[in-house]
Structure formats: C-alpha cells, structure tokens
C-alpha cells in the first residue's frame, strides 16, 4: 500500500477522532440528545473509514478474493440504504429500479463496503439528491451507479478527500474476477449535471 496514502488516511482519521473527542468533551458538561446523535454518527463514519483502510491494506498485502453469490440487487441495495446512518439529512437518496436485473453475482460484504464509501463521497457534494441504480452490463456483468446532483468533478472542496474511498472501490471491483475479466470503477461528470460513480463487475 502506498505509504503516502496510508499517512494521509491515518492523518484524516486522527483529525476526525480529535473532532469526536472535542464533541464528547463538550458533552461532559451538559449533554443533549442532538450531540449524542452527532457523536454516534461521527463514530460510525470513523469506523467505516477504518474498515475501509484495513480492507485496502489487506488488498495490497494479501490480495482480496470476492466471495461471489447470487443476489437480488434490489433487495441488496434497499437493505444497504435502509441500514445506513447518514450525516446529511438534507440529501434524499433514491433507488432507481429501471432495468434492474433480478439476479446479480457479487460479494455482498465487499460491494456493500464499496458502495457505502461511494455514497459517503456523493453525499459530500450532493445538493439535495442522490440516485442509486443497478443495471446489466453489456458483457453480462453488473453495473452499479451512484449519481449526485452536485457541482460535478473539479469542484473545489474546503477539505479535500484522501482518495481512500476511490482506492477502496477500485480494489473491491478488481477483487471480482471472472475468467480473465476484472471489475473496474470510474467517476465522471454526468451529461445532465452532477457526478456519477460507476462500479462494473464481471
């Protein structure tokens, strides 16, 4: 694993932990429910980051092997969205079921982790809406996509991202192999505005 990337991620996690520490310190005086909820959310997003980091580390050290199973993408995606703790209450996430196949073959634990990271990323940029979809790819595989209605690529951020999310998604996509083919990810501007993240699995 790239040592620079590792350092950036650990630094990022350290900062988030510092913010959590501050919030908790404030709560020791006179805790409110809102503060507790916010601290819980920070904590859960930190944990997601750490899992992502560990998974990426494992992928570079030992390689990742997807445990592919037959799944119904709609069940999987609605479960993922339902169990999610969102830090942006003002952003609505919808599931586009158009052309969604009845069966898909993928590792639900790994793909769940990747899509969670991609959703976190999208919710940083989205204005009001994120759309999640899954369609059949031309060569018979699957294509998951997450589209936001934000400013698109190249938008200036106050706090630039570490790149952990994309690196993780790419490692997880590549862990899906079928014959000679491997999965891939991309992040592009959508012609109708906003950015779209795509994960293609063989």
């Amino acid at each position, binding site marked *: 694993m790239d040592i620079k990337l590792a350092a950036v991620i650990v630094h990022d996690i350290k900062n988030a932990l510092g913010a959590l520490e501050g919030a908790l310190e404030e709560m020791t005086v006179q805790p409110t429910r809102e503060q507790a909820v916010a601290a819980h959310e920070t904590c859960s997003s930190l*944990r997601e980051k750490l899992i992502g980091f*560990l998974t990426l580390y*494992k992928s570079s050290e030992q390689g990742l*092997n997807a445990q592919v199973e*037959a799944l119904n993408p709609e069940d999987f995606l609605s479960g993922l969205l*339902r*169990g999610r703790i969102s830090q942006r209450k003002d952003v609505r996430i919808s599931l586009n079921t158009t052309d969604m196949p*009845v*069966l898909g073959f993928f590792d639900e*634990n790994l793909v769940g982790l990747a899509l969670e990271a991609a959703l976190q990323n999208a919710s940083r940029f989205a204005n009001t809406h994120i759309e999640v979809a899954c369609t059949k790819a031309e060569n018979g595989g699957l294509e998951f996509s997450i589209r936001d209605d934000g400013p698109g690529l190249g938008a200036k951020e106050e706090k630039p991202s570490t790149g952990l999310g994309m690196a993780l998604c790419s490692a997880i996509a590549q862990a899906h192999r079928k014959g000679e083919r491997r999965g891939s990810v991309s992040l592009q501007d959508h012609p109708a505005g906003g950015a779209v993240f795509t994960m293609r699995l063989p």
Partner: protein
Amino acid sequence: MATITNQRLANLRSLVVDDMASMRQNIRTQLGQLGIPHVDQASTPDEAIRFIRNNSYDIILCDYNLNRETNGQQMLEFLRSQNILPVSTMFIMVTAETSYDLVASAAEFQPDAYMVKPLTGGKLLERIERLLDKQNALRPIMGRLNLKDVAGAVAECDRVLQTQPKWAIDVLKLKGSALLDLGKPEDARKAYDMALGVRDDLVWAKIGIAKCHQIAGELDKAKEVVQEVLEVNAKYVVAYDLLAKVAEAQGNEQEALDALNRSYEVVPSARRSRMVGDVAYRTGDLEQARTAFDRALTHTKGSLTAQPSDMLSLAQVHVDAGDAQSALQLLSTAPKHYAESDAFVATQAAVQAQAHFKLGDFEAAEHAYNRAKTLTDTTRADASALALAKAAFTTGRDAEGADILAKAVRADHENSRLVSLARKVLKDSGKEDMAADIVDQALNQVHAIVADANALMRKAQFDESLAKLEEALQSMPENTGVLLAAAQLHLLWMSQKGLNLDYVARVNNYLAKLDVLMPGNERVSKMYRFMRETLSRAKKD
C-alpha cells in the same frame, strides 16, 4: 437506534456464540432492539453444542474466533455432519473484516450467511429479514424434502422457479441434487445446465454435472470435469471428495488417498483427517493412517466434537503396525463417559485382546476377549463386530472368527466398505484362503434369499415371498439390501392385492430403519416414493 417492532422477529429464538462477554452482550442488545427477546448466550463451542442439542433456535450468530481448539467453522462442521442443526435454523458466521474471505473461501460447510464485524442493528435486521424471505420462498420445497418426497420437491422447485425468480439459483441447486437423489442424472444435468446458463462459472453446478456422469457410470468424464474445476478452484473441497470416490470406484486407491490428502490441506479438520485415515487404513498404508487418526484425536481432544471412533481406529492401527504397547496405552486414556457406550467398550476390549495377546499376556487377552464377546451385537455390521472377529483370529479362535465375520457380512452385504474391511481382517490375520468360504459364501447366501423371494413373487406366491424375507430379517435385522427388498415386495403385494394395514406398518418400520442405517440414500428415497404412490393408488381403488 430506535426500537423496531416486527412481528416476524418477535418469536425468533436466538443463540449468540462468542468468547468475549462484551461482544455477546452487544449483539444481545442489538437483537433486543430489533424485537428479538429470546437470546441465549454461549461462550465456548462445547457450551453452544449443549445449547443447540437441548433447544431449538431460529438464528445462531457465531463468531469465527472462538478458542484455540475450535473455531466457528469447525463447530458448524460438527453440527452439520452430526445432523444436530435443523435445516430451518439460520446459522450466521461472524468474522473480522480481514479474515472474512479466507474463512469463506475454504469453508466446506457453508453457513446461511457470513457477516463482517462490526455488527450493527441495521445490518442484522436487513440480513435476518432477507434470510427469512429466502426461507419462506423455499419452504414448499424444504417441506417436501423433509417428508422424503423428493419427486414432490422437484415439482415444487419448478413452481418456485416460476413464481420467485430471484431465488432461481438456490432452487436450481436444490433441484439438481434432488434429481441426483432420484437417480435421474439426465434431468439433473438439465437443472445444472440451466444454472450455468445464468452464470457460467458456478462451481457447484459443474460438480453437479460431474456427479451426473458418475451416476451414469461415466467415471472418466466425471473425473475430467472435477479436474477442470480444481484447476480453477483448488480450494473447493467437495471436488476432492468426488475425485476420491471416482478413483476408488475405479479401483485406484492411491489416487483416492491423494485427493483426500489434498482436501485436508485446504480444510485441515478432524473430519477430513478421519477420511484420510479410513482410506489409508483400508489400503494398508498404516503409517499414513496413524498420522491421520492421531491428528483427528489431537484436533478434538477434550472437546464435545471428539469422536470415540478415532481412538479405536488409532489403537487398531497401532496393533496392526506391531506396536501393541501404544495401543493399550492409548485405550487407557479413554474419557470416562465413553464407557457408557457398549459399542465403544466392546471394540475397546476387542482391540485390547489383540494387543495383550501380541504382548504375550494371554490371561489378560482371554479376559478382554470375553468382555468384547459379551458386549458385541453380532447381528450388526459395525466396527465392533470386525474388531471382535480380528481378536478371535489373533487369539486362535478361527472358527469363532469365521462365524462372526460371516454374520457381519450377511448383516449388511451391500455395504462395499464393510465387505472390503471383512476381507482385510482375513488378510491381516493371514487367513486370506478363507475369504471364499466366509465372505463370498455369506454374500451368496443373502443374494440367494433375495433372489428366492423375488422368484416367489414372480410366481405369484406372494405370502411365501414375504415370509422368506421376514424370516431373513430375524437373523439380519439391519441388512439394508434385505430391508429394501422387503419394503419393495410388500409394496408390490399391496399394489396387486390392495391395502394391508399390517404391511403398511411393516414398510414404515423398514424405511425408518433404513433412514438411520443409510441417511440420504437415493434408493431409500425411491422406496419412499414407491410407498406414497402405492398408498395413494390403493386409496383410490
């Protein structure tokens, strides 16, 4: 997280297995918040096994890392291979994020789901609901299978395929294996081909096709398919088992042993080591048999997963290898509760008799032999009968040995493993020349009884035919071949002459015995179907 009330979850009984009290408590709280009030907790595999034996659970959440001796996967293997876990129980294996794919890729016994830590209420709810949906969708099929109505299960598979396409892959897997059970390789092949049409790299479907070849007697083709699978998926242990079976059927015992050894490298479990030991012993490779049984013993030492037969097998290997002292030493370490089983004590005494005799302690040998003889049920074809026969030959009681061996072969003449072990007893005792007199003659006797009964049936001497088999069952009550023939001829009688309630009871009794003697056997399934068909026709008439 807010408390979710869900009627479906409120009645679920669950068990959490984790060595860390804080993790158990955490999961228990999460389950409680989901509205699952009944949560038992176990901290060790042994405790979990006791809970599972004494209660019935809808969900078991088991951590992979349990203790040094047994991990979650080994516990699942024990539960499944001993048929302790009902099919309706959802078993969820919880692993750390870093070990999940390693655990899952080499798992022989699949849990219903793997979940990666940390578990949150939301994730648990989502997964449990999805598993409940699947259970509901497959219920009609599983219901038929529970009733041994395999043909009915196939019909249900077709129905569920139409109405619930999202479970198509699971259904095709069940359908293929049901058709294999019914001995219909051509139809099974269609189910597997259909699954491969959806996704062409499904390993179980390819192995299914290899099994179709095996059943159809196309052993070379079966082997070819298995080898193709192993080239791409060297960790798919089930493939090695099939390879070993095919090799053994082709008389290639060394190849069978190699295949099982490779499977042990993938899943180094007590069960796999035992399989290696059994084949190594049968093929006369005492060194390998010793290592394998020793490993099986060490793996399970002090645990509920320990199997008394491992100790007996290893002791017999020691005696055969000329190390009688080690055999006696080993047998003296048997846990106290093993003595509650007559079969164990009988075999133990039979091996001790051989060992004492070889060490020149004839008095102790005499004493042990008599104890073994008192406790061995010679109407059964099991390990203790074979060990007793061996002890008889070792201690110079040739006539007695011959008698015990002949009875054992007659007790289950279609069991090819038993017959080959019986021949081995003679070979090891230097009595190979007696094989024709003892083994072949015993085989012929039983074949003749079944043939006579069939002939009487063809001549429409129904009652004489049935009496012949009933009489044979008096002296060999657990002979699977005779039991099957008896069931078949009683059913034939009823299909000619109409319903007879005594005969229905008899057939039920035969089939219940067969279920215990050869669980999951395709010929037994067929007989169940024959019974249902006969009874429903008789009712209409």
